[in-house]
């Protein structure tokens, strides 16, 4: 694994021997890894390797048959997704999963859902706490709009926006949650070079300026190797290699998984 300095700090996320199967198909089989504070951790692998399944286990959409997931010192397996989200785990999706009829502003405000404390009665009257909290949330959301350069689209319904911008809005929605850990599922899939570079810059900014650890899944090897501190390689749900980008790239098992070498 890594040096002793990292071992001293408790990891933000600890995944131990997780196994998930759909009937006979083993989607994840014995995956273990840790994410340190402010680390940029990448998960890569060929199509169907189980990358998105790992994310779905972490965010509570799937419940694994074995293994443990510890987030900020607490076991999260079996908790409903909205509880895990409230603990500070935010994610984006491989295929953009925004609220299409709502504006960029409303999508970002929804990210702050669990930061509000007022109830239905106060909402109907829009008095006191409801009004105060909404205004404060709006100010925070505007920070994110600045951060991600979304000001031009603030009032647009999300469904009308170009794909690259939608990806950015989804990142913004995750950031609005004020996450303790951010899971990005293929943030640059289908993007052109310029959009990819923009997104890479945002990801680095999130880690460096906000200090939020990031788990990144992507197929863009150039991006992953440039950004990530450590990389986990999956193939058919099993871990193949774990280490720094340079170590992983040299690993013959990784080359075999990608290029189909002799077993």
């Amino acid at each position, binding site marked *: 694994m890594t040096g002793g300095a990292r071992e001293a700090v408790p990891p933000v996320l600890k995944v131990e021997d997780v196994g998930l199967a759909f009937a006979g198909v083993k989607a994840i089989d014995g995956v273990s890894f840790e994410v340190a504070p402010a680390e940029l951790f990448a998960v890569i692998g060929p199509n169907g390797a189980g990358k998105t399944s790992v994310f779905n286990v972490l965010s509570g959409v799937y419940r694994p048959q074995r293994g443990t997931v510890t987030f900020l010192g607490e076991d999260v397996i079996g908790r409903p997704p909205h509880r895990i989200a409230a603990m500070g785990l935010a994610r984006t999706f491989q295929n953009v999963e925004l609220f299409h009829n709502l504006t960029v502003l409303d999508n970002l405000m*929804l990210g702050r859902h669990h930061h509000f404390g007022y109830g239905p009665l106060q*909402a109907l009257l829009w008095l006191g706490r409801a009004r*105060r*909290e909404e205004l404060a949330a709006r*100010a925070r959301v505007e920070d994110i709009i600045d951060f991600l350069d979304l000001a*031009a689209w603030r009032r647009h319904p999300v469904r009308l926006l170009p794909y690259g911008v939608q990806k950015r809005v989804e990142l913004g929605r995750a950031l609005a949650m004020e996450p303790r850990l951010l899971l990005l599922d293929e943030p640059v899939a289908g993007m052109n070079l310029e959009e990819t570079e923009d997104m890479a810059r945002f990801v680095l900014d999130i880690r460096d300026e906000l200090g939020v650890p990031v788990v990144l899944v992507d197929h863009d090897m150039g991006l992953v190797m440039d950004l990530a501190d450590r990389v986990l390689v999956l193939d058919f749900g099993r871990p193949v290699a774990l280490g720094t980008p340079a170590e992983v790239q040299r690993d013959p098992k990784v080359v075999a998984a990608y290029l189909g070498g002799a077993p």
Partner: protein
Amino acid sequence: MTERTGQVGVRPGVRPDSGPGGPGAVRARRPKGRPLLYTAYAQDMALLDTRAKKAGLALLLGAAVLLSGLPDDLLVLLAAGYVAAIGAIGLNIVTGYAGQVSLGHAFFVAVGAYTAAAVSGDPGGRTLGFGITSMLVWLPAAGAAAALAGVLVAPLAARLRGLYLAIVTLGLVFLGEHVFKEWDHLTGGPGVGRPAAVPELFGFRFDADSALGTRAQSLYMLMLVLLVVFAVAARNLARSRIGRAFSAIRDRDIAAEVIGVPLTRYKTLAFAISSGYAGCAGALMYTVTGFFDPGSFNLLMSVQFIAMVLIGGVATVSGAIAGALFVTLLPRITQELPALLPFVSADTTQTPNVFQIQVALYGLLIVLFLVFEPRGLFGIWIRARAYWKSWPFSY
């Protein structure tokens, strides 16, 4: 495209303008000659965020008040339309905002109507009554009883969606119809009915002629005021965390859960609030006629509410009001048809007659609106506004 202007960190609690009282606490003034320039988020998030909207609403309300000079039969019709609008706003909350199709709205209307009628009914009368005629008691009671019924039905919505939920809520209407027809002590029985709730507030009877105006005028003003209250509350709800959560569930329920919206709780809440609105509408609906029959709460009533929402505009409060008025006034307009179209008869024994057309028209209008303007009357308004804003250019 805008240039990126420096990276602003999203750190907690370090906003320059968050002085004591938080951002927006200082009431920023709008510079002269720049009516569209906002200098505080409170201005941007206001319900009436432009001068045109403020003036438009003032005109509309002024016109509504002036309408109280109309003949009594029209006033009664409009008052019924305002009450229907409260019910339609309620259905729009669960179906329009939260996306849970409900055909059971008539059932919740009935729960409210019977709760209010029983609370304010004559204790010595033929039907159940507790003799508390104050609106301050029976209106909240009707809303609360219907909301409770909504909460009891909501677990179905947590398990079912789309067509399946529609069918289950449809079953609710038939179930309710049967219970209300059999429960004579509460409802008076089919064909007989019972007296409706008594609209009394601090000793003032809205259902009687008084020094302030005729019976129809009093009821008209009462319903207008209540509609404004319920509509403003619904708009507030829609722009709050709760309204946003409803829309999130409608658009993408799994993503909503992953960002922290508990689905079951919010679906339950949507049903509770929607049914609460329906209950209040039911309580008020029959104060105009003074009497009602358990046969009223049938599928046709549910379909009429759906028609109001679809014709008016899904997920808009003003659309629901416009739709409700449209659907309520429609029979009155079709009554004039025989005078205009010679082949339409006012006689029920002939075909086509006015009553056949009235029933068929709801279905026809729903189909036409869904095909040609899914955003309803609200959508037509938006298009007209956009046209005149950019006139004489097409865009």
